[in-house]
């Protein structure tokens, strides 16, 4: 992957600006590639020293399930990468409570420590961002 912090027509420097970026994950892993390619953006974004948060709601919470074994579908298991996010100083992972309940999931089912938010709190989180990315 080419890392490209410089580009043509860059009309101002990006250094110094810190914005709040929220990555919204609402899709299950493996059925589609969105979850994986979203994570690839998050990893690159880490180099930009922005204020990054990840939100998991609806089927997006399935991305961080423990115990994924993908050998038989011949697709790479990318769930361990969520554990590596801490090393990139990405530590704000939020999961919506209502989405967990609808799927019968508990905090200990997740591969990473997360903060559980009510729907109202999740809405508040969304509202206070500068940039919201969804895939």
């Amino acid at each position, binding site marked *: *992957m*080419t*890392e*490209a*912090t410089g*580009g*043509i*027509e*860059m*009309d*101002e420097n*990006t250094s110094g*600006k810190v*914005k709040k*970026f929220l990555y919204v994950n609402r899709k299950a892993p493996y059925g589609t*590639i*969105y979850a994986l*390619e979203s994570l*690839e*953006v998050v990893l*690159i*974004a880490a*180099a*930009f020293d*922005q204020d990054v948060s990840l939100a998991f709601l609806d089927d997006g919470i399935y991305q961080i399930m423990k115990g994924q074994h993908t050998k038989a579908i011949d697709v790479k298991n990318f769930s361990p990468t969520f554990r590596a996010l801490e090393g990139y100083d990405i530590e704000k992972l939020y999961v919506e409570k209502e989405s967990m309940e609808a799927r019968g999931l508990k905090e200990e089912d997740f591969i990473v420590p997360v903060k559980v938010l009510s729907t109202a709190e999740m809405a508040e989180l969304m509202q206070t961002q*500068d*940039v*919201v*990315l*969804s*895939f």
Partner: protein
Amino acid sequence: MKLGILVNEGPYTHQASDTAYLFTKAAIEKGHKIQRVFFYHDGVYNSNRLTEPPQDDRHIVNRWAKLAKDHHVDLVVCVAAALRRGIKDENLQEGFRISGLGQLVESGIQADRLVVFGD
């Protein structure tokens, strides 16, 4: 105002790339600056030079290319997503350039708004 655009889907299959184009065109007509259009996921297919739709249909690839030519819009195709989907310099339409994901993050930082079009 400076607007960044993210296109997550390929041409014809999903309406996302149509809506993104019509939005971008309207923004330019209203005098806004398009900071960049970034093509990710299947969005990279929007840059496929070999695309040949039926004659009575819109030509989505050329429509983007014309926007780049007429209004100097920066059309960036994600290199990782493009390689995975077989988009390379040899089939890249003029007016698009291939670059890294950092260009998307940069859009988020530099643009006043980042508008996402997907499935």
